[in-house]
């Protein structure tokens, strides 16, 4: 049976999702509303005796925040905190997390050439991608603010942010496509051919292929850097720039000596945010090469041990390696945020 060209099973699926959304929301509202009403009933303020009223009032305001926080803390605990602890434990356990094996997993993973290849590649990613995104994002932000079609230009640069890593990988695989013979349907090889060069297969070109994969992430993330930096640039007082122009500074001097130092804090935020993203990059490598031809990265290596290697211990070690790399940025973030969160 079909309706609007959609099968009955599909309607069932849609109905299931719709009912689930409503159920989820009803459960949430029910919890928050119910517990709050219960709290007001259990510790009422309208009893006789001012002292009891005050005490109940005090207790209510001590308990209520935790009613508000409880579901969030439950989810955070279950999906982020508990796994963090378990992953640390698993890294000292055997392949099915059954028995304790000491540091065997760590010594094994650290003795694997593939692991160090992943570390080396990840280091390259960390150096190249945040630098390229921040630089390009800054250049575009500065230039686009000076032309009448700047908003339109920024939208187009920003657009890839909405595209999945897998979608972006397919899009770029088409750009990198190589065919033996004269006809090249990949844009990059066609351009090379146009300028008289020989078409090449980019994806299995060891070492350099890493950069062809990085370009995909740079393509996606430059828009992010551009938007954040563009907002920061707008916050720079006009006087500082006018003064520099009066002093005879040229465009590049104004950019590097007047503007960039004033938005250094934002540049750092952009840089660290993209660095974290780079450390977690999985989809692009998984889709494009799955780590073949010397393109392995930690996140994909972790997935390899999780699924095909089927070894929880090794997989945990690789995951923790990523975590350790993220740790300095995490601490820096908490310090920055605590400046205003702590004193609220």
């Amino acid at each position, binding site marked *: 049976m079909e309706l609007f060209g959609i099968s009955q099973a599909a309607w069932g699926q849609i109905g299931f999702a719709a009912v689930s959304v409503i159920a989820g929301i009803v459960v949430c509202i029910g919890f928050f509303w119910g517990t709050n009403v219960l709290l007001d009933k259990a510790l009422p303020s309208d009893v006789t005796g001012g002292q009891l009223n005050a005490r109940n009032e005090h207790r209510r305001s001590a308990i209520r925040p935790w009613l508000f926080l409880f579901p969030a803390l439950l989810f955070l605990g279950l999906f982020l905190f*508990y796994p*963090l602890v378990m992953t640390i434990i698993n890294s000292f356990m055997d392949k099915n997390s059954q028995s304790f094996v000491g540091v065997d997993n760590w010594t094994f993973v650290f003795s694997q050439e593939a692991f160090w290849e992943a570390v080396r590649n990840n280091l390259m990613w960390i150096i190249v991608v945040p630098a390229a995104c921040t630089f390009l994002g800054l250049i575009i932000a500065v230039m686009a603010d*000076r032309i009448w079609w700047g908003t339109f230009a920024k939208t187009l640069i920003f657009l890839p942010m909405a595209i999945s890593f897998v979608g972006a990988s*397919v899009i770029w695989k088409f750009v990198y496509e190589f065919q033996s013979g004269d006809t090249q349907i*990949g844009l990059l090889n066609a351009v090379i051919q146009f300028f008289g060069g020989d078409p090449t297969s980019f994806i299995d070109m060891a070492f350099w292929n890493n950069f062809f994969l990085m370009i995909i992430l740079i393509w996606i993330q430059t828009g992010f850097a551009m*938007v954040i930096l563009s907002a920061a640039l707008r916050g720079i007082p006009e006087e500082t720039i006018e003064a520099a122009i009066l002093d005879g500074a040229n*465009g590049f001097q104004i950019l590097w000596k007047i503007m960039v130092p004033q938005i250094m804090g934002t540049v750092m935020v952009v840089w660290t945010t993209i660095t974290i993203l780079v450390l977690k990059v999985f989809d692009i490598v998984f889709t494009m090469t799955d780590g073949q031809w010397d393109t392995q990265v930690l996140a994909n290596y972790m997935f390899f041990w999780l699924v095909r290697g089927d070894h*929880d211990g090794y*997989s945990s070690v690789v*995951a923790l390696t990523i975590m350790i790399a993220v740790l300095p940025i995490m601490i820096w973030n908490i310090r920055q945020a605590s400046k205003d969160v702590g004193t609220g």
Partner: protein
Amino acid sequence: MGSSRLGRIVVHLTVLLLVVIWSLPTVGIFVSSFRDKSQISSSGWWTAPFRSTQNARHIPQDLSGQRLVDGEWTVDGRIFPEGSESVIEAFAATGKILDGEDSLSVGETAKLRRGISVTVQADGQYTITSENEITRARNARFVYRANEPPIFTLDNYKRVFTRDGIGQAFLNSAVVTIPATFIPILIAAFAAYALAWMRYPGRALIAATIVGLLVVPLQLSLIPLLSLYNDVGSIFGIDAKSYWGIWMAHTGFGLPLAIYLLRNYMAGLPGEIMESARIDGATHFQIFYKIVLPLSLPALASFAIFQFLWVWNDLLVAKVFLGDGETKTVLTSALKDLLGTRGGDWEILATSAFITIIVPLTVFLSLQRYFVRGLLAGSVKGG
């Protein structure tokens, strides 16, 4: 910068160049998704609006019209449908090279195998003659080079929706994404209010922990959660990899950003409104849903867009917590699989890729303002 006339032209050209570089890859996929299969593999997508030359093989489809003419079996056929603007440039027997010495011009006759010959005209009409009755059409096949007008078609879309499972995957993606976008919002909103406007011991610690959790790599959660899911699944005798499982996982993973964004926004709301409501005897619960929640709509929208894009575009969580199967494979996963099984079939890949990106692109373009606002407020995470 750009105070001189030359400087201004340089700025315009540089931005134009960058915009073109940034857009062309996506345009390529978009254009290719409407092109004819054989044209995609024989010419670059940037030639799509022009006539193209391509080599192809022809096997006669209908030999039922064979009849004896002057002692020879004869049948007519056409390579292109009637009214086509395609033009034959050369043809040859299969196995011969079209640019080589065996290549024939239109009007000439090619000797095929088993005493079969074919004469091809410029408009693609041909006549096959044979000493014996032709029983197998393959014996009468030949190759040709044709100059074709551009062909734009919706066949690729029809094909991937029906035969390659993209339609089903699209539905699966929607079923995963919509609840996973809505469920975390309410939970996060309450927590954010508690962090912004309530006083209790441990508040600063919770706030700092959430900032810390913003950057915890997803990879860390996979193994313990997977075994937890399996344990729970086996206790209740259900499939651990279910929609409820992935909705909850996405809720958990999305919460730090949701709480962080909403807390920042709510903390910026004017305190006097809440103060006066308190004095009028309103409880925190009433203040929350009567005042704070309506005022926070822009921030809720920002997060909803973030979460929508993140869940729709996610591959890792879907692979691990939902797995594969007809009603489970989401778009990203289906696209990744097609890349493996149909690596060179660009008409399928381009079309599927375009279908996977069209929804997030539409959401993004129509709600860009909220997305940017969210980015600026939550740039600690970003992805």
